[in-house]
């Protein structure tokens, strides 16, 4: 006796959350059944393995049919085939678009192309996430990217509107899309200590302050591309390190303000010129695409690592960077010379310093006069 056909169709589509998770995680029916057996469901319900098998198959089939709709979530709301309560619909969408931290860290900033997709099996073996699941997540990124790429308006809003995601998830997707578009390098070994959350935070602030959208809200691609003009302006920050007087003045201003407040004052004083040079150079280089991609690598190399080697505590880094950017405003010459400044300051995961697991990274800058003196803050948390 072999079962040829075995289906169950409810007027309200039954969704089993556990099975959905297994399906999303890319398990085959057999693996899923094995996992469910291990979870002790048979004992709880007194069912047999055959029943479980049939149930799992049924759910998988339903999910398979729903997948087409999940690719365009608004369709799921308007379709007539599956009667699903709204709360369940939201759950289906949210779970489908959820991603694994480990996976996103691997592809963050990479081009969402076929080439990257081919490498997914490597990522799968590396992260221990099934290839199926990797593919789904990758395709989700790509789909969202494709849809919102050319759209006007706020990136987060667009994502929310077209994919009906929760606010948090939409923000994460915005970060992923932003990174993919600008191809920021995040895979280097030096950057491994940074989590996706850190990058997402950066992305959010950068979208708010550095993109075309920040300047003019009626442009295409507004939240995706960096404002070229702004980057150009950053070049003018070079005076801060090129002009010897200005550099000294700046240093003295910062030192006066921070004296006694910083635990690592002497190291700071000794390293001020190096740090300042590092930051300003990173900022000034941003007109080249390649350097934009290496932004995070450069910041870590030029600023974070020196601080880390001097064992700066997190709070001191914050103090320093705040003061560093604030002092620029009081530089007379700077004001007159139509200068622009970028101040980057990094709170780091400093060995031996505070136990805070988060590393903060802040870039502060004043732009040229005609851009007013906007302040840009960018935190890595």
């Amino acid at each position, binding site marked *: 006796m072999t079962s040829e*056909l075995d289906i169950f*169709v409810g007027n309200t589509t039954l969704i089993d959350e556990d099975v959905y998770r297994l399906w999303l995680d890319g398990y085959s029916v057999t693996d899923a059944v094995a996992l469910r057996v291990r979870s002790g469901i048979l004992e709880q*319900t007194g*069912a*047999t393995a055959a029943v479980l098998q049939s*149930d799992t198959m049924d759910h998988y089939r339903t999910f398979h049919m729903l997948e087409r709709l999940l690719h365009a979530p608004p369709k799921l709301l308007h379709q007539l085939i599956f009667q699903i309560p709204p709360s369940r619909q939201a759950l289906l969408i949210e779970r489908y678009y959820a991603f694994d931290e480990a996976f996103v860290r691997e592809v963050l900033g990479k081009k969402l192309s076929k080439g990257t997709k081919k490498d997914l099996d490597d990522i799968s073996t590396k992260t221990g996430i099934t290839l199926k699941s990797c593919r789904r997540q990758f395709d989700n990124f790509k789909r969202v990217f494709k849809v919102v790429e050319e759209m006007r308006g706020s990136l987060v809003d667009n994502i929310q509107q077209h994919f009906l995601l929760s606010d948090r998830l939409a923000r994460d997707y915005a970060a992923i899309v932003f990174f993919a578009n600008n191809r920021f390098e995040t895979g280097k070994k030096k950057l491994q200590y940074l989590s996706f959350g850190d990058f997402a935070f950066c992305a959010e602030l950068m979208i708010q302050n550095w993109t075309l959208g920040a300047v003019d809200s009626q442009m295409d691609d507004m939240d995706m591309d960096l404002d070229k003009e702004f980057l150009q302006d950053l070049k003018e920050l070079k005076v801060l390190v090129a002009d010897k007087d200005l550099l000294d003045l700046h240093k003295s201003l910062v030192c006066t303000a921070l004296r006694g407040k910083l635990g690592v004052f002497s190291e700071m004083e000794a390293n001020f010129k190096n740090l300042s040079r590092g930051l300003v150079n990173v900022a000034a280089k941003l007109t080249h695409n390649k350097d934009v991609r290496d932004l995070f690598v450069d910041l870590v190399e030029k600023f974070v690592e020196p601080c880390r080697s001097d064992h700066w505590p997190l709070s001191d880094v914050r103090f320093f960077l705040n003061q560093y950017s604030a002092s620029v405003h009081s530089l007379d010459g700077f004001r007159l010379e139509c200068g622009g400044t970028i101040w980057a300051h990094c709170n780091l995961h400093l060995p031996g310093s505070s136990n805070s697991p988060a590393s903060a990274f802040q870039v502060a800058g004043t732009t040229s006069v005609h851009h007013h003196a906007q302040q840009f803050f960018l935190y890595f948390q």
Partner: protein
Amino acid sequence: MPGKLKVKIVAGRHLPVMDRASDLTDAFVEVKFGNTTFKTDVYLKSLNPQWNSEWFKFEVDDEDLQDEPLQITVLDHDTYSANDAIGKVYIDIDPLLYSEAATVISGWFPIYDTIHGIRGEINVVVKVDLFNDLNRFRQSSCGVKFFCTTSIPKCYRAVIIHGFVEELVVNEDPEYQWIDRIRTPRASNEARQRLISLMSGELQRKIGLKVLEMRGNAVVGYLQCFDLEGESGLVVRAIGTACTLDKLSSPAAFLPACNSPSKEMKEIPFNEDPNPNTHSSGPSTPLKNQTYSFSPSKSYSRQSSSSDTDLSLTPKTGMGSGSAGKEGGPFKALLRQQTQSALEQREFPFFTLTAFPPGFLVHVGGVVSARSVKLLDRIHNPDEPETRDAWWAEIRQEIKSHAKALGCHAVVGYSESTSICEEVCILSASGTAAVLNPRFLQDGTVEGCLEQRLEENLSTRCGFCHIPYDELNMPFPAHLTYCYNCRKQKVPDVLFTTIDLPTDATVIGKGCLIQARLCRLKKKAQAEANATAISNLLPFMEYEVHTQLMNKLKLKGMNALFGLRIQITVGENMLMGLASATGVYLAALPTPGGIQIAGKTPNDGSYEQHISHMQKKINDTIAKNKELYEINPPEISEEIIGSPIPEPRQRSRLLRSQSESSDEVTELDLSHGKKDAFVLEIDDTDAMEDVHSLLTDVPPPSGFYSCNTEIMPGINNWTSEIQMFTSVRVIRLSSLNLTNQALNKNFNDLCENLLKSLYFKLRSMIPCCLCHVNFTVSLPEDELIQVTVTAVAITFDKNQALQTTKTPVEKSLQRASTDNEELLQFPLELCSDSLHSHPFPPVKEHLESASSNSGIPAAQRDRCSSWIELIKLKAQTIRRGSIKTTVTVEKASPVGDGNFRNRSAPPCANSTVGVVKMTPLSFIPGAKITKYLGIINMFFIRETTSLREEGGVSGFLHAFIAEVFAMVRAHVAALGGNAVVSYIMKQCVFMENPNKNQAQCLINVSGDAVVFVRESDLEVVSSQQPTTNCQSSCTEGEVTT
């Protein structure tokens, strides 16, 4: 007489990409009715076209309106090649033809293609302006309402129940016409869908005419079936019960529909002393004898002239005069006579209803069934389907004579079915023989006084259990005792019926689903030989099915079966029997005895031991079941009852026969002869198997109950969560040397596993009950068995479940309140009328209420003459009203979120798609049905040539059933409804050819579209005054027009 059909095509959405180059579609729509076709403009390059067409107007006969479906085809315009079809929508406009049903069909319909399934949706608005036809000789029957529900619909009152109506139409099956060889599968499928749609329209119209002829205004328990006879054609047949219904239009007037449908119906007038003045032996009445002279007289069915009179219509067991006995009494005799005269006018005193108005059912005799094996031949002249008619007439005559043998003059819970394999066809009919109260059957000729007295006498809680036949002249050996409830009249020890449990019956404990399953191998044979082989097997199958049912019933410690449905399916090399019923313990019937096991070889010690071991197991099971179903009847000592008949014998209440192509009728005595009833003899391995299979039935997990009747006996505190589902399983038997035992085991496992799967899937709903569990078996191929189950899971409140049985005192209190309500009913009706007729301008409203003011009492006094005019009058007013104030219900437009929130009716405001509930029951727990919108009767074919790509057979069928549900929901929503009740999947024919990567499936579903209001909402509404209802529809009208 003409009517004007108006159609507007608004928009489409989610259309498929038809042009690969642009990834878009140039869609346009063809609207066809009869032979007239209109087209919309082509909406270029869009997957969400906005046609916003003008009103397409069709001027047609109302005959066509009833027969023809509106056909909407969506196409992709192609400049150079032929236009590609995207899909079709068939809309049955019948609901627009009743006066009280929907006034407009408007909403999103899935665009369906028989090859690709659903491909996008289309928004359509349909209206009908009907000019009323007063011509007596008309061919149309607009205005007759149809209900699938097998009880009197919730917001109506039965004035008269006229009786049986039937009709069948035949045609050639397009699939088997020569042209099918040259046309595409799509064209052939569409031809079939269209033909069936047409035929069922025609059938409904013809039945409607018969109803009008009988002076009824509605058909209740309407059951329409298709017989796909292959080469020999396509038969569409329908049966139903003609009624005259009166609308109880006030939402407040009818009682809480659901929370406890049982409670509602329990509130009937009843008398605590069941039989006060009859009893001592009445003199033998000659009347009684007379009553049995049925004369086929005036009849409304076509084959009235057929010469069926040769079938003996006189009772087979001579119930002579002088034997009327003590239980008869003058009242009974009088009643019989009256009922008889009422029923005499009918050729077939059959009722497709399974639940009845209080007091309708007087006595129940038992199940009657008849089967007949026929050889199909080509239907030569579709206009004269005489052979098919004659076949059914024959079977009905048999049923009628069986009923008579049981001392009953009517058959209730009547149904018919067929099973076809190649050219052999088994026709089956079954029902429950019963004695009815004439009050509902006659046109008000009974004098009120007599009527009342009768009613008081007969509508007791145990009345229906009392035997209708003569004790001394029983049609079969039976064991009678005095009723355990009234102790005055005789009852049988077991009762089998096809109806729902009468709501006034006293039940102890809970009920449960009982199934008997059986397979028999059969040699492959051709034609005549095959038919003979089958008809030889049939009696044995019936016997075994019956024995199984009886044993399982005893094992559960119960004594009555309700909703019994025995299905016998014929395949090429086997016969399958599946009987489902709900077992209960009726308080009026005696406690069932246990089951004893006896061995044949008494000397073998180990064997003895084995036997006693089995016996112990059986006894344990019975004890466990009693505990599980809470069966603890009060102890009654034998003395009080007095054991009247000493010899305990098992006897069957099934009386049946089967006949071959000849008219020969063989009757089968299903009792076990002289043997002791409850002894199972284990004399060979077969018997061993039987006993084992008895014990393998696993009870449902705790928190689950199941039954195949409308409501679960013993549970009446439903909560509102319901989940209707269909589950299909097909197994392939491991071929070759199959034995009967192996087959039985396979089949048993299949059913048991299916049930277990259901319990597992629905575990989140615990505590819940699977109601109306409907199994259908088919044998699509040699080694395939297909089982289809449709049921509904309803949650209930466990805490209140304990206080189920009410004491008589409570009941009488209730009764008093009911009386009050009945008094109140009329005024309420009036005020509600004005409530409901809101769309009319105020002046009309007055007219309306005035007409009901004068009209309804008139109808009560002189129903036969006035009601038809009244209805016509109403129909006219309403029709005119609807033309004036076209209320457009924009259902689920994509941007309609805001619009949607304005409505008060839909239960789920967050979603853009309105929720439509579906249930096979006639009610919705926790809600009141406020309006019936018309019957839904849909037939779909789906075919694929890429079976593997669609996920194999399971993927294909899963998607198809989901699509069918979606289309049913869309139609209901478009009618303005939010639920389907009495939903039934009548056919699910699945054929596959995996080698060719092909599969085809046909599904036929039906149900009643309704509007329901949650009881909790209702309270709010009524406290806020009824205007809210009107307001909501007002705003809708404003928004959309």
